[in-house]
């Protein structure tokens, strides 16, 4: 196992000029020994490129990769001692489950009794112990993928285990069980795990630290709570949560913060200056307020949806032509109907402020 330090960039062409020329913009990042990390972002954000640079499948065009302080930039995945699990099962169909799990150990000349012990342990964790002597060929896709996971996790001496969307082939109803397995395994084996996914549930559930990426940039590295409560970048606010954070253009001056000409907040030292900023508030934290409440805005409801366990209200500031606000309301209260004018509280301890997409307060 190793601590992994990255200080690099990866460009599509020899002399990159603009941001678009980079698959990965210059970044500096550390994966701590024994940590569980997820790289999360939409397709094309650079997460797989980053994973491939860690594994050694791709050499960065600038900078390098260090494992425990040693430069490994020029080394292959094998030399780096990396285990990988891919989207689709990579196993030997003609071997039994046990032989498949033992394969990475046998390859490295591990003693037979040690192999037996380790294979037994991994099989038990993944609930494969009943199938150890079965041929892999006859198994269902999810059982095969479990074997792939097992093969990735079976060696104790790996620098890190890398996962590239490993639950793609798993039936939705079984996914949570495998997520749980992966979490348990991480706690027990203390391996460094790096997990690439575009699925926020997978990333937020699995990882201690999630790296949120967009357009070749890592915009925030943080825990699930940090990404939800204090998105460092408007992209994180938008991407995490469904629907994502509401963003409203706001004006700061000596008397305070105003939105659409209405003052909603006292002057604040962190937001000084005469400036245009963006106020961000999650639909979960928008509440109904009495008319003229300080910190609330009048808005016209354009949609009211019963989502079963809650109501999702879509409203537009003012008469219905202003900025959009979404509120997630508990069904126990009176739910406003379409065309009704409501006052929505948007300022509170969970409200965030952004300038040029970056969090300022």
């Amino acid at each position, binding site marked *: 196992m190793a601590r992994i330090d990255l200080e690099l960039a990866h460009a599509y062409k020899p002399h990159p000029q603009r941001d678009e020329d980079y698959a990965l913009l210059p970044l500096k990042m550390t994966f701590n020994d024994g940590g569980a990390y997820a790289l999360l972002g*939409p397709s094309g954000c650079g997460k797989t490129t980053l994973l491939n640079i860690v594994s050694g499948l791709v050499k960065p065009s600038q900078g390098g990769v260090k494992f425990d302080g040693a430069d490994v930039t020029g080394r292959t995945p094998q030399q780096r001692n990396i285990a990988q699990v891919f989207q689709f099962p990579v196993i030997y169909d003609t071997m039994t489950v046990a032989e498949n799990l033992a394969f990475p150990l046998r390859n490295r000349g591990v003693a037979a009794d040690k192999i037996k012990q380790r294979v037994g342990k991994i099989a038990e964790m993944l609930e494969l112990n009943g199938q150890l002597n079965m041929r892999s060929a006859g198994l269902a896709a999810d059982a095969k993928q479990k074997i792939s996971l097992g093969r990735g996790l079976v060696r104790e001496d790996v620098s890190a285990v890398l996962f590239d969307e490993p639950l793609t082939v798993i039936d939705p109803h079984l996914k949570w069980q495998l997520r*749980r397995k992966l979490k348990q395994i991480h706690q027990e084996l203390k391996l460094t795990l790096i997990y690439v996914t575009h699925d926020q*549930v997978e990333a937020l559930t699995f990882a201690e630290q999630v790296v949120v990426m967009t357009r070749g940039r890592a915009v925030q590295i943080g825990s699930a709570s940090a990404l939800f409560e204090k998105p460092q970048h408007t992209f994180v606010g938008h*991407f995490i949560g*469904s629907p994502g954070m509401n963003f409203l253009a706001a004006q700061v001056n000596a008397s305070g913060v105003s939105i659409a000409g209405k003052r909603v907040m006292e002057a604040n030292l962190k937001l000084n200056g005469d400036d245009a900023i963006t106020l961000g508030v999650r639909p979960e934290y928008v509440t109904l307020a009495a008319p003229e409440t300080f910190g609330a805005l009048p808005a016209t409801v354009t949609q009211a949806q019963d*989502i079963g*366990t809650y109501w999702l209200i879509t409203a537009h500031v003012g008469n219905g032509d202003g900025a959009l606000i979404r509120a997630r309301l508990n069904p126990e209260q009176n739910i406003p109907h379409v065309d009704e004018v409501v006052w929505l509280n948007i300022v509170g301890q969970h409200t965030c402020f952004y300038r040029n997409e970056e969090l300022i307060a």
Partner: protein
Amino acid sequence: MELTLERIEQRVGANVHLYPLDLTLIPRAVTVLLGATQAGKTTLMRVMAGLDKPSKGRVLTDGVDVTGKPVRERNVAMVYQQFINYPSMTVADNIASPLKLRKEKNIDARVAELAIKLHIDAFLRRLPAELSGGQQQRVALARALAKNAPLMLLDEPLVNLDYKLREELRDELSQLFAIGESTVVYATTEPTEALLLGGYTAVMDAGELLQYGPTAEVFHRPKSIRVARAFSDPPMNLIEAKATQSDVMLNGSLSLALSLPALQSDMLTVGVRAGALRVDRRENDLALAGKVELAEISGSDTFVHVHTQVGELVAQLTGVHVFSLGEAITLYLNPAQVYVFGADGNLVVAPERK
């Protein structure tokens, strides 16, 4: 258009793909076909479209029997999971194709209007392969809308897109459906997608149509355990229970204060939606102590899987909550928020709605 299916059945050899069903779609509204994979959604849509002839039963459009009529002779627009476009035609020609086929006028203006609506106006001169998956599906949707057919069938159109794109496109589609005149059928496996689309929902399971009605009503009053199971995400918690004279007993020891109508059997199943379980205690709550198996975090919600004395339960908590595996937890439940199903699986009691 009013589409009616009368005693439709579909068999392939000895396999039953659709059991006899009757369904009249609410005209000019969205009907969501909700069910797991293999529930029969695609089979039913193919019968609706005229792509397949049913083994038995009749298909009527506005009262006219069209059962044997092939799809070419019907006016139906379809959108599939895969992004299907004419690969050698530009985006503009793709959208224009149904209009050209009908030799319509003002084709360019119509194409431009649809392209703007679906945010692909910048790519009109490109080929589909030069676009992202989301943009390709927008082209397929624009072409389907261009057809302006009285019946529009969409078979999990967003399933192959990233979830943020899905969210955006679903919103836009609902708005387009709302202003359009078409009768829309939209198949999905996701309960939340059905709720977001609103309209009406037909719940399917293993080749059977189980229930059809306004989406929120079907969700809040599922006729049976099967409907409740199909229309809950996360799955509804189901607990075996027994009716006594004065209450409902869970696991022989926990009492739920509920009054029930007269029952044939005292064997019951209590259903608890994940959202009805809380970690904050209120008066008259039932307390269920347990251990955390896993906390799944979706961003907006945390789904806590808990091992309790009445079995495995899932609680849905708003926002991000962090629990360690094995941590002790107590879930609270208001007895007025439970569903009760009889021994036959049919609904006996549903929570009252405001």
